[in-house]
């Protein structure tokens, strides 16, 4: 009798205690969330980033000071109650301008990264999944892009193609599209390599073979079986990418080939502030701090996510 195993035993082996059964279910994402919350600096990063987002997105609704009201008598004033960030040479309120510019800077970061992520995942997935000829062609293209000198190339393309895009989409949207497209198009390569490597290893696994046996199509295999396994790499790359895209946009604006003066992104504010470092240091300090805080908190969040999404580190 001792050797017979009933169905009951299999469903509920006697060794498992009731308490253990009542333990809340754990999924990959809840594990990651728990792990992420332990990373104090990443949590601080979330708080700072949310504050910055609230300030730039909702701030202008509360702080109703025009961004372009010129008042020469109030030029280059330091921070005061009336103008918390001070004013620029034309007496425009810098807090209002920094809020407006923050919207543009953050939007550039997010949209550019979406482009880079889409391109990188797509190219990496196709190269890794199909292999062979397609793979070697795509990887050659990736190598070619990696050999481009990024910043000089960005400068060149942005400067040369700004006028036609301005004509088609208007001065603001045209520059936005140009900058976002160029940053996105020059930042997909590392992710493509990462996704490819991970596709190469995952596609050999048994569960993929099983799915193929059941008759899953190539697209289904890629999208719902292999891709989720590369998701954590994509998420981390996307997070950190937003920070570096913000820096790239600010660099372009700082070098004077980015946004026009009526779109005061943080980098553009710094570009304008350069001439007045002696009379109005606040003009440079506040927008610079905003960039620094945004990028620092994004990087810490990326760091926290990297730890949280790495199953080897989960406790």
């Amino acid at each position, binding site marked *: 009798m001792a050797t017979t195993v009933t169905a009951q035993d299999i469903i509920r082996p006697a060794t498992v205690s009731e308490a253990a059964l009542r333990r809340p279910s754990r999924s990959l994402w809840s594990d990651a969330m728990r792990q992420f919350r332990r990373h104090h600096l990443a949590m601080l990063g979330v708080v700072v980033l949310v504050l910055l987002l609230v300030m730039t997105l909702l701030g202008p609704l509360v702080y109703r000071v025009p961004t372009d009201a010129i008042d020469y008598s109030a030029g280059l004033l330091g921070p005061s109650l009336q103008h918390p960030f001070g004013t620029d040479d034309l007496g425009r309120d810098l807090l209002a301008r920094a809020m407006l510019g923050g919207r543009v800077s953050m939007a550039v970061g997010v949209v550019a990264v979406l482009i880079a992520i889409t391109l990188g995942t797509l190219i990496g997935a196709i190269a890794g999944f199909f292999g062979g000829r397609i793979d070697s062609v795509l990887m050659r293209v990736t190598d070619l892009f990696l*050999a481009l*000198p990024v910043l*000089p190339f960005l400068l*060149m393309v942005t400067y*040369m*193609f700004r006028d036609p895009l301005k004509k088609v989409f208007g001065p603001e949207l045209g520059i936005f599209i140009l900058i976002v497209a160029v940053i996105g198009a020059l930042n997909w390569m590392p992710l493509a390599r990462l996704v490819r490597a991970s596709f190469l290893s995952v596609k050999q696994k048994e569960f993929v073979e099983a799915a193929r046996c059941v008759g899953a199509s190539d697209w289904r295999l890629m999208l719902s079986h292999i891709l989720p396994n590369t998701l954590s790499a994509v998420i981390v790359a996307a997070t950190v990418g937003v920070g570096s895209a913000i820096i790239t946009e600010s660099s372009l604006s700082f*070098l004077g080939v980015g946004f026009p003066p009526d779109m005061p992104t943080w980098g553009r504010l710094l570009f304008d502030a350069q001439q007045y*470092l002696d009379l109005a240091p606040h003009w440079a*300090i506040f927008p610079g701090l905003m960039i*620094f805080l945004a990028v620092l908190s994004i990087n810490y969040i990326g760091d926290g996510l990297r730890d949280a999404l790495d199953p080897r580190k989960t406790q």
Partner: protein
Amino acid sequence: MSRYLVRRILLAIPTLLLISFVLFAILSLAPGDPLSQFAANPAVPPEVRENIRRALGLDQPWPIRYVKWLWSMMHGDWGFSFGSRVAVWDLIKLRIPSTLAVVGIAYVVALVLAIPIGILSAVKQYSMFDHVATTFAFMGFSVPTFFTGLLLIIVLSVKFQLLPFIYDSTLQVHDLSTLGAQIRQSIMPITVLALFQTAVLVRYTRASMLENLPQDYVRTARAKGLAESSVINRHVVRNSLIPVITLIALTAPTVFSGALITEQIFRVPGIGSLLITSIQNNDIPVIMAITFTFSILVVLFNLVADVLYGVLDPRIRYD
């Protein structure tokens, strides 16, 4: 190894050809007239402008111009600047020393600082020193170089008036006082670049050390009874520095483009500022020469990194 090297070099050549073709195509197809300076000048009649265009070879279709450019470039002739009628190479030659001095010294400073800090930070993981070092490193690469530069100017030049904030390129070093002036004006640009590079390298060195410390060969070394200092210095550091050296080789060219911004802040008359003024003046031969030189540097240093990796790490075999 030598077969691998030959294959890599053979692969680098088509890459460079393709890049030069892409760069040339973009520059030629971009709207914007290289003769816009003349276009704005009413004193230049249209037929003269046409003559200039022909003299510069701009009347030919761009694929032909590309072949010509490639041919003369391979013979060491980089063409003439549209703006100043000076040979492109002479223009670049003038600017290289300032850039190399600033970038080179900054890189050396970063190396000297970053590697010991990274090693110590990993060996004493979670100590006070480690916390300070990692926080500094994290901040260092999150703060854009143009902001550090402006902050340094505000504090050191404006507030305390210790250092000049414009780089004087006409300064000739011939005695102690001019040498002092040269050092004083180089401090800030070098600090800005070195700070960023140090931050990147500290993080990388530390991570690489932490990867090696728990490995079996380290335990073996300790079990043999070696002193901790020789375990760290002769075993762990040597192995940990392999990827760091590769990273240094890989990032060396990006430092040149990073210097673009630093040169712009402090008005250092280097390659970067030459590139920016040429872009603003649509001076295609100069833009082409500089961007292509940067591309050559990237490809070259990629090659160096790969080869170094194989030389330093006998576990890597190329066949």
